[in-house]
């Protein structure tokens, strides 16, 4: 699995499971870029078939519907979709 790291200000661990084609995923990444937050992401559709299954098992643990973007905050909580307010709330900002 190829986890991409984007440098920025550390407000907590933000991991996004995304699709490279998904516009809501792009919006979430774009918002983080604009705010200068550090975050990591995996574009699941870019993984090999075998890797994809392993990543989807991970996604399923957080979000049984396996929808995108699945955003995991501090390895504790998660939400799905383009929801900047929810992210700020989970980060305590």
């Amino acid at each position, binding site marked *: 699995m190829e986890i991409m790291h984007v440098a920025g200000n550390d407000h907590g661990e933000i991991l996004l499971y995304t699709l490279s084609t998904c516009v809501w995923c792009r919006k979430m990444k774009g918002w983080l870029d604009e705010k200068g937050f550090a975050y990591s992401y995996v574009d699941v*559709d870019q993984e090999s078939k075998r890797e994809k299954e392993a990543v989807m098992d991970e996604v399923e643990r957080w979000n049984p519907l396996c929808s995108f973007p699945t955003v995991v905050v501090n390895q504790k909580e998660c939400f799905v979709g383009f929801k900047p307010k929810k992210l700020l709330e989970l980060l305590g900002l």
Partner: protein
Amino acid sequence: MITSEKVNDLYSRLYSEAEAGGYHLNPDEEFTRDLIEALLINTQRYGYQSCPCRLADGVRDQDLDIICPCDYRDPDLTEFGACYCALYVSGEIARGEGEVRSIPERRPSQRDRSHEGQRGKGEEEKHADGEQHGGGGAWEKEPTYPVWRCPVCGYLCAREHPPEKCPICKADKDHFKRFL
């Protein structure tokens, strides 16, 4: 290679098809262009126009319900005013009277889909045995969905709610009457 001409071509085709059928593309052109480019990427990858916002399996049979326009578009338009990707939006949003947002996923989980598939398979096998045949007409049991009738042109559709506009004669949703 996905050129901007290809994006333009698909954009104008989808736009005219949508409008002709009483549907609307998202008026946010940049957002919609990104989605249309993603549809072209998926067509190149999988050979069919799989939903850009969902992970395709790559096997057409497994992805039939998420080939755009997907099986979930119309119920999502009715409930949220936009499809899951927000490529298609309601008339209200197309007129700029509302905003699109991320909506919940309506597609069942893979686990539930495969259970559904198993059940479907079981039914076919029963029929193949011949034991379940005989006498049974389609109307013996309650239909799975209500059937709506457009009183203008007689168009019938079996779904939870009528479409926003009749795809045949463009009559508005409130014209539809429950038929079955």
